[in-house]
């Protein structure tokens, strides 16, 4: 049995068990650790502004309904929700993969090309590593640069540097099939970051990995984010993962997909193993679990 599913089930059961007892300190925790709503129109323009976005698929499914969301510069935001809540769809729309049926997604601070499309400065990490099996790690990471006509010599140097940054120095010539699941994901992250984008969108990137690998990658991702200062949007269905990583958690509900809660996680960075085992972390997880439970129940 894969550890992910066991963990998911456990989280739901814990949520149920602790839900009532946590009701009391729920309010207290809310003010102590989790504060929202996000301050809007407070000077700095958001990087991405999602306004009244809905998405209906051709088969009639309403994947996302009336979502409003501002993604601020330098944030680490998790989109948390059960499967079918439209979090991936929302993420793909932000990336420009599929247009919203209604509403707008603006990039107020980026330039727009002649046809009025925003020049989205983003990296995207898919649920699977999505590497080209015929190309080695270095060539895979180089691909975005090659597509943007960066000279080969420079592309190679920048890609090698990026691979080293994700801990894969020495694996430049390895083919994807020769790498473990976690290493493939690292290549995928290196590829998404090689253009040094302002925003990194991740669609449940670690869902298929074992728990030990996932913890390692979570730590390394946080460090990378802390160092390189991009905005991170992380789609997940794991409460623990979202609390550990995020500055801010957007809880979504399914059928139709919509935003239920927008929570700030006021724990300081850098976060490490100490945070993962702290009482604060446990409290935060309990509260977020409660919110998720409400979202599922509604």
């Amino acid at each position, binding site marked *: 049995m894969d550890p992910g599913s066991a963990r998911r089930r456990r989280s739901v059961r814990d949520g149920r068990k602790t839900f009532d007892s946590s009701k009391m300190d729920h309010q207290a925790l809310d003010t102590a650790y989790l504060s929202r709503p996000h301050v809007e129109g407070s000077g700095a323009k958001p990087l991405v502004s999602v306004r009244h976005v809905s998405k209906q698929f051709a088969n009639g499914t309403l994947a996302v309904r009336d979502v409003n969301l501002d993604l601020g510069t330098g944030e680490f935001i998790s989109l948390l929700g059960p499967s079918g809540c439209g979090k991936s769809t929302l993420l793909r729309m932000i990336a*420009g993969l599929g247009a919203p049926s209604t509403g707008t997604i603006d990039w107020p601070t980026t330039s727009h090309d002649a046809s009025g499309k925003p020049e989205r400065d983003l990296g995207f990490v898919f649920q699977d590593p999505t590497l080209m*099996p015929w190309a080695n790690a270095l060539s895979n990471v180089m691909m*975005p640069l090659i597509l943007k006509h960066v000279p080969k010599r420079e592309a190679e140097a920048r890609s090698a540097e990026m691979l080293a940054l994700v*801990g894969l120095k020495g694996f430049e010539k390895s*083919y994807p099939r020769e790498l473990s699941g976690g290493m493939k994901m*690292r290549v995928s992250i290196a590829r998404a970051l090689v253009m040094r984008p302002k925003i990194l969108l991740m669609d449940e990137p670690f869902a298929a990995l*074992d728990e030990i690998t996932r913890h390692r990658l979570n730590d390394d991702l946080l460090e990378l984010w802390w160092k390189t200062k991009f905005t991170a949007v992380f789609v997940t269905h794991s409460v623990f993962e979202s609390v550990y990583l995020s500055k801010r958690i957007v809880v979504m509900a399914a059928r139709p997909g919509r935003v239920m809660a927008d929570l700030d996680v006021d724990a300081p960075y850098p976060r490490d193993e100490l945070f993962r085992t702290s009482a604060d972390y446990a409290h935060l997880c309990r509260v977020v679990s409660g919110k998720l439970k409400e979202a599922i129940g509604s």
Partner: protein
Amino acid sequence: MSAPSLDTTMPHVPHDGTDAEARPIFAAEPRILGLPASAWPRILAPIAVGVLALGLWEFLVRWKEIPPYILPGPVLIGQTLIADWGTLSGSLWITLRITFMALFAAVVVGVTLAVLFTQSKWLEMSLLPYAVVLQVTPIVAIAPLIIIWAGDINLSLLICAWIVAFFPILSNTILGLNSADHNLINFFQLYGATRWQTMRYLKLPAALPYFLAGLKISGGLALIGAVVAEFVAGTGGSESGLAYRILEAGYQLKIPRVFAALIMISLSGIAIFLVTSWISHLLLRRWHESALKREN
């Protein structure tokens, strides 16, 4: 990132990266005459079966005293092959030349059409049915027409062999071009890749294994096409391929020669298959599932 660390759950072992994973498989195996020991049964077993069958054949021919114009023994066929080598090798060369020219044309036209078809659905909808018509029409039935229209006999043989050979390449390459990973296509979209870039860096490499599978089939078919077309054409003269030698020898009841020519065609077919398989192996061995060695 905390120090260049790997995410393998065990302490890093040397054969977890690069091509080292595959190396122990080869290194651990003893080699006999430069080939891995496990490769030899693959080579020796069919040879043993062949030698046994030939021995039985020779024995039956001698024991039953079957006349050579009905069934020649392998020894006589071998002798004929050597004796007639001058005529037969010239014909073999002509047949092979047509085969390879047809295969080359099949690759060029097949891949070009496949690329065009994936660029334009309209083109595919309008033209693919006619490609299918070419494929399903028996070449024996249309060869006489082609010979009349083309005028030149070599050109008509080439056209016939090409018609037989090109469809597997076309249909396999279309399938390959359409089976590029959807997420990878999205990834190319994200970086604003042009059609040409998507074709060059994504779709063509993704189609390669499919194309090579088609090439293996078409290699044999081009040879069959070249031989069948020549049978139908039935022309003689100095510029004759193996098919005509078979017809000619048949009329003259030189049955050992018929067999000798047949053997040359079979061996050519096997050689073409081995060469295309080898090319396929060279191109895919680093990354494609079909070319990987597995221990379990």
